[in-house]
């Protein structure tokens, strides 16, 4: 399991209902079922991955974030997870809305376009940056909506989401040390990981009750 998947798994309370959008080979939902007793299900766009997951006994549906989330009921899940995919969906804001409609919490990871290497490359070469994280040329990349950590935070504020936890993560998925300063995280974090709640979860008068 990738290290950032382990970080995601640690954010999820045992015994909860989880929907993993872009479940890939099903590693995370398998882990959540076996080790944390979760009712974890997946949506995956790549049919080979779907077949492989189902052949391993995992509940995975062929579908994608842009078109299939609208068909899930309100509050059907405790957590809805979107790993390294937000930048590739057609309508990121709508996808986030759907995630927090379906789930009480959304867990989102994405590659940070504000990383210093990208900034320098664009500054000095004047061309679209290419790194090990952003490794497809502009005319072929599926990443049509790149954003920085600060961009993402601004969107969360605009939409009124409650940021319950966030962290910068390096390329290998190891937790990066930039926890105090968003600006430093935005400069040095290769990826970001957010745990979001609905607006009401953050209202100071009503401290968020932990749900079993």
């Amino acid at each position, binding site marked *: 399991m990738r290290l950032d998947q382990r970080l995601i798994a640690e954010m999820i309370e045992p015994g909860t209902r989880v929907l993993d959008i872009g479940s890939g080979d099903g590693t995370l939902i398998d882990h959540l*079922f076996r080790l944390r007793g979760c009712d974890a299900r997946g949506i995956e766009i790549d049919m080979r991955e779907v077949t492989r997951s*189902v052949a391993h*006994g995992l*509940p995975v*549906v*062929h579908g994608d974030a842009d078109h299939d989330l609208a068909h899930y009921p309100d509050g059907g899940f405790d957590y809805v997870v979107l790993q390294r995919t937000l930048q590739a969906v057609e309508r990121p804001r709508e996808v986030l809305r759907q995630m927090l409609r379906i789930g009480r919490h959304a867990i989102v990871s994405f590659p940070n376009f504000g990383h210093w290497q990208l900034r320098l490359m664009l500054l000095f070469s004047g061309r679209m940056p290419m790194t090990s994280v952003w490794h497809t040329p502009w005319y072929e990349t599926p990443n049509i909506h790149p954003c920085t950590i600060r961009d993402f935070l601004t969107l969360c504020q605009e939409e009124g989401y409650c940021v319950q936890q966030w962290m910068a993560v390096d390329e290998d998925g190891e937790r990066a040390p930039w926890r105090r300063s968003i600006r430093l995280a935005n400069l040095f974090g290769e990826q970001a990981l957010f745990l979001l709640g609905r607006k009401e979860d953050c209202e100071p008068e009503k401290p968020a009750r932990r749900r079993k």
Partner: protein
Amino acid sequence: MNSTAPLDVGDHPHITFPQGLDLECGVHLAPIDVAYRTYGTLSEKRDNAIMVCHAFTADQYVAETHPLTGKPGWWTRMVGPGLPIDTNRFFVICTNVLGGCMGSTGPRSVRSDEKGDGVERWGTDFPPITIRDMVRAQYMLVRHLGIERLFAVVGGSMGGMQVLEWAVTYPHMMLAAMPIATSPFHSAQNIAFNEVGRQSIFADPDWYGGRYWEHGVVPARGLAVARMMAHITYLSEEALTRKFGRRVRKDPSNAEAPEASLSMFSDIFEVESYLRYQGSAFVRRFDANSYLTITRAMDWFDLAAEHDGELPAAFAGTPVRFCVVSFTSDWLFPTSSARYLVRALNQAAANVSFVEIDTDKGHDSFLLDEPDFDRTVRGFLCGVAEHAGLR
């Protein structure tokens, strides 16, 4: 005249329920026979039973040589020791559907009068039955076998309709449902194809208003044409092209001019000869009135009908684990109808897996060699067993 002469298919292992069944149409049908076959061994806890539901023109002979045709069972590549539906592990049940012609009560059965004496055959007087009636007959058998809960219900095409009907009617009687190459309702196109088949039977002078047995015949031409037409819908254009292309038949007895003996309307192309063979083989094992009865049962199928067209409501709160399978080249029950079903299941917060198998073999793919499909069936059943804490 011996009224049982045409198409007497002999005796098939069955159970008779003298109490009969209240059909959805309001008719009380009694007694009813349910012909069935089982494979594997029922566990002590009776928790390893899988109901396999057959497609329209198949029958209960899933995994053994068919007593009538001498051909292998229709799913011998899926059901058996060590196969995806592993009979070393599971106890597999398959019934001939109500309205069928392989031993279960159907239009060919002899109807009883009030005294219980056999009077004559039902023929076209056989009451209209529905997919739910078929499933309720299967349910009676399951209870008779002392099974409290099925491990899974699995089936393709019309068998998939029965799977869905099981899940809606008896959600607490089963752990898992695997509807394959099917749809939660019969589409206008599906109904249209069925109607052409029925009209073809009606148009055969040997049909005699449905009482052909009185004349010692069967409406073979009409039934064969219905079968030929339906068979095209089970295949894809790619599969037909791959199998036959535009190839012309050769007359082996006339080596110098092999095509000379073919008249304008004989079966010149190989695909024609194939379809004619399919048609003529079919009429030897299938009853025309069953064809009419079962096509109508499919036409009426619409799971959302009882819920004002809201399909998710049919599955509300379902505890069943679903695995929906479709095939890319199936244009009779296309992936769009599977996706419609999956979205309704999602809306009902059901536990659902959905796989579309990439193949060019058309609707019949679920009967053919598709390794990805085999893996899906095996993996899904293992996953269900693991989640249920069985072995």
